[in-house]
């Protein structure tokens, strides 16, 4: 048990604040506050110091990120209400008023920033969606997130399974046919963009008789999940395979593996019990940011398969100058990246004994 220190107390509080802002939308103000208190206590008491420091850092980072995003949005030419058929100036002004968007200038950006933060922290709201009017950003992003997360998790599962299998298989017998065939696959997977893989999959397994086993697009059933998951997973699988191969090659040459062999363990035990742990360390480090990306959705795969996920909002928000959607995606993406990196930092010492006791 660590003794109380300023970092623990402040970090715990900060974690509580983050939890409150995140949870109040789902649990309501009272529920959110209760849950946040619990999280704060747990964090102060049990979280590793490194994690607390990271949370502490993330708060000013969020503020800065939103500020920079707002100012960039207000710099970029274009207007959420502009269209080819030019509307009256007075009409555009009135629309900006309706949706609380000040004139485009540095000062206007600051005003917008202040109003946005107030809305976010005080009301727990992320503003209205400008291109799908009648909806709030929360209403469009919240249902989209689990969709992208499910798709991402399926893809991650496939990517890890396939990637680790191929990579370890290759790494155990470097420079043999096994190695070349696995790495050949990996190179193809890394080089082919996912929309090509996706289109090929649709062509063969949706439109191509007699293999038309799956729907071409849509969402809401297991059969609709298969093709997009595979298309999303293959490039990641290829990358993981390459990482796992180099990890395996490196570990297999180390002293502790020789020791394990020397004490008479079977090759199977050597690999599974000793080598694998070391071999997947680079994979896990890669998985943090990769998972953050994969879970927040892929624009290409989601549009190709007509999936109502998060990925589309990243691109559409920016293209349409849908200011509130842009900020919503910025917050969400940065939060998820920070969270996943945190998880990886926590997981690595647990997987690799050599990294324990460092933090």
């Amino acid at each position, binding site marked *: 048990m660590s003794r109380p220190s300023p970092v623990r107390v402040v970090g715990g509080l900060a974690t509580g604040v983050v939890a409150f802002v995140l949870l109040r939308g789902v649990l309501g103000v009272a529920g959110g506050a209760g849950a946040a208190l619990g999280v704060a206590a747990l964090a102060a008491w049990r979280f590793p110091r490194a994690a607390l420091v990271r949370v502490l850092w993330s708060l000013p980072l969020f503020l800065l990120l939103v500020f920079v995003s707002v100012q960039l949005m207000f710099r970029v030419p274009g*207007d959420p209400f502009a269209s080819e*058929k*030019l509307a009256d100036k007075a009409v555009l002004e009135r629309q900006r008023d309706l949706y609380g968007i000040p004139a485009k200038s540095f000062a206007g950006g600051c005003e917008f920033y202040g109003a946005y933060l107030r809305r976010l922290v005080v009301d727990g709201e992320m503003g209205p969606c400008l291109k799908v009017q009648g909806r709030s950003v929360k209403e469009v992003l919240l*249902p989209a997130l689990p969709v992208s*997360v*499910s798709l991402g998790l*399926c893809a991650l599962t496939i990517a890890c399974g396939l990637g680790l299998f191929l990579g370890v298989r290759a790494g155990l017998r470097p420079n043999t046919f096994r190695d070349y065939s696995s790495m050949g696959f990996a190179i193809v997977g890394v080089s082919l963009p996912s929309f090509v893989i996706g289109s090929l999959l649709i062509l063969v397994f949706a439109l191509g008789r007699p293999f038309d086993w799956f729907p071409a697009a849509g*969402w809401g059933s297991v059969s609709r999940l298969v093709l997009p998951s595979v298309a999303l997973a293959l490039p990641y699988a290829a990358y993981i395979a390459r990482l796992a191969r180099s990890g395996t090659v490196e570990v297999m040459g180390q002293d502790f593996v020789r020791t394990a062999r020397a004490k008479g363990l079977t090759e199977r035990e050597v690999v599974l019990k000793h080598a694998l742990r070391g071999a997947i360390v680079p994979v896990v480090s890669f998985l943090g940011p990769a998972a953050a990306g994969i879970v927040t959705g892929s624009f290409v795969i989601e549009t190709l*398969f*007509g999936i109502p996920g998060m990925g589309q909002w990243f691109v559409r928000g920016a293209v349409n100058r849908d200011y509130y959607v842009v900020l919503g995606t910025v917050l969400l993406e940065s939060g998820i990246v920070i969270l996943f990196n945190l998880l990886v930092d926590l997981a690595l010492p647990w997987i690799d004994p050599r990294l324990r006791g460092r933090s």
Partner: protein
Amino acid sequence: MYRTLLGLFAAFAGALVVVAATLSAYTPAPRADFVFVNGSEPQSLDPHRMKGQIEGRLADALFEGLTRKDPGTFEPVPAVAASWDVSPDGRTWTFHLRPDARWSDGDPVTAHDFAWSWRRLQEPATASEYSAVLHVVRHARALNKYGAQVAALRGDAAGKDGDAREGVIRRFDALLRAHPAGVPFRAWTEFVTDDRNALRDQVAGTAESALVAPLSRTSGDLTPAEGEAVLAALGREAERRAAALALARAHFGVDQGAFARDERTFVVELDALAPYFLELTSFYVTFPVHRKTVDRYGLDWFREGRLVGNGPFLLASWQVNEKIGLVRNPTYWGASEVSLRTVDVLPYDNQTTALNLYLMGDVDWLPGIYPPDLIDQLSRRPDFHANPGMIVYFYRLNTTREFLRDVRVRRALAKAIDREAIVRDLTRKGEIPTTTVVPPGVPDYASPSNDLAYDPAAARRLFAEAGYGPQGKPFPRFTIVFNTSEGHKKIAEFVADQWKKVLGIEVQANNKEWQALLADVAKLEYDVERAGWIGDYRDPKTFLDMWTTGDGNNETGWSDALFDRLVGLASDAGSLASWTPAQVDELVVACREGDRMRALLAAQRDAADAAARMEATLAVRLQLFREAEARLLIDGVPIIPFYFYVNTGLVQPDVEGIRYWGTKDGARVPNLQDEHPLRDVSTARSRGSRP
């Protein structure tokens, strides 16, 4: 090791739970009677705040106006209005509403609903972008625009910044004082185009000659006397607009303009002759909205569960980025004529996805949403349909650029383009090449011929006359900008190449992100820009009045007093019958087809009865537009027309009622506006021949 395995197992189990939970939130719905891809989410379902075809398709399903389009002839036919009368001068329309029209909550649809809705459309607070289509209604323009204009002219005490509080008149006064010897032309132009003043917008449509002349002037300083006259005219203009606004506020929707005479009689008074008026009453912007619902929910009244409509369908569900579900509306007066029980509207914008779904049979109709590269294969299919549309593809020329000031240069550029080749080799859908802007099919109208057709030798000659070319000055390098799209890029590169070959000039073709392009064009910060224009109704007006001085969509810097006058007279063609011979002579001299104009005016003046006079007046009106189009494309050339788009679509063979061609008076007519109301569609499923 077991710990690792356990961890992995737990992680995957967790993942599975998340996936299962998400999927179980979706209850698989049976396939709807009719499924189509709409290309995007609608920006709004409030008819007064809609602005495009994507929203329009939904508006036609959820609401209904006074009239609707007949699915066979595409002509307006009775809808909420069972019948109507027009006054002899064509200015007053009286609509008699059907007694059985109901809102989906059971309330009857009354003339008061229309009066309130039309007033809401014009109220500045509604911020409608399409309110201008009803500006022909008496008081509508005043109610809609004059408030902001008066505030801008006089200064607005509630204005957020100093500029707005000060006002145009005070700023012009300061400009006059700063130049006691007369305002130099440059300073005047800067004042007019200054974003804070936007003077042309503030006094658009003014009759003050002291303003009109300086505004359309292309050179020459403002003398002190002219300056004072402008100042005085600005004051009078503000005065006049303030008075008109007060009248409009008191009367529009109450007892003038558009108002309810009784529960079932809706009267509309027009400021101008509008033979196309019944097309407007079937256009979604003029649809009624349910007052109680709008008052209760405000800005977001049109969400599922709230929206109360009067159309053939109800909004059953709306999952953003996934689908909008419609079901047949049992309270709709014509429910027995509606075949489809359920409709799914898919928002997908990915053309490949849309085509895939169509090819698998999951979608019944693709309104032009397929990969354009496949056009050669797709257009050979029996289920592929196409017709000429009311959309023109053109380039804007920035006439304020030094090197584009000379009309001979603009003509030379237009004449150096082989439009046939563009349509044959690049776009390939059967588009119609053109040198005019009003598409064929606009009733009773024929565009005047002009001299912009492809002719390299003549183009070179014009260029040399303007002082450029091999013997003349070098022409500056300039840029064609277009919004990022493979199709626009191909055309822009082709045009750049032709201009280089024919005229020997260096042209760059640059793409620009859509929003950035719009911003640049609005500020006249471009050389040549690709553009498109969709007609709102079948009348030359919708393609021509945008080129008048001060219109927000002009965006070329071109301003022509005669053109403005012709377009202005066309809206008031009835008054020409009472003109003096001197006035007629003056107009006839200015016209290209003077004899024809004189004959038409004589026919109008000598008409035997009201009906004959109306017919003659309409002919005069169209002739005025014909003259205006000639002025635009013979004398002005601020734009280069390329071609008219075609509307295309893929329709499954069992679908009936999605018609690209119809018949009227025994002749085959195209569905110019690409309107396919779901009310009249049926499929094998909905007809009951397939489960």
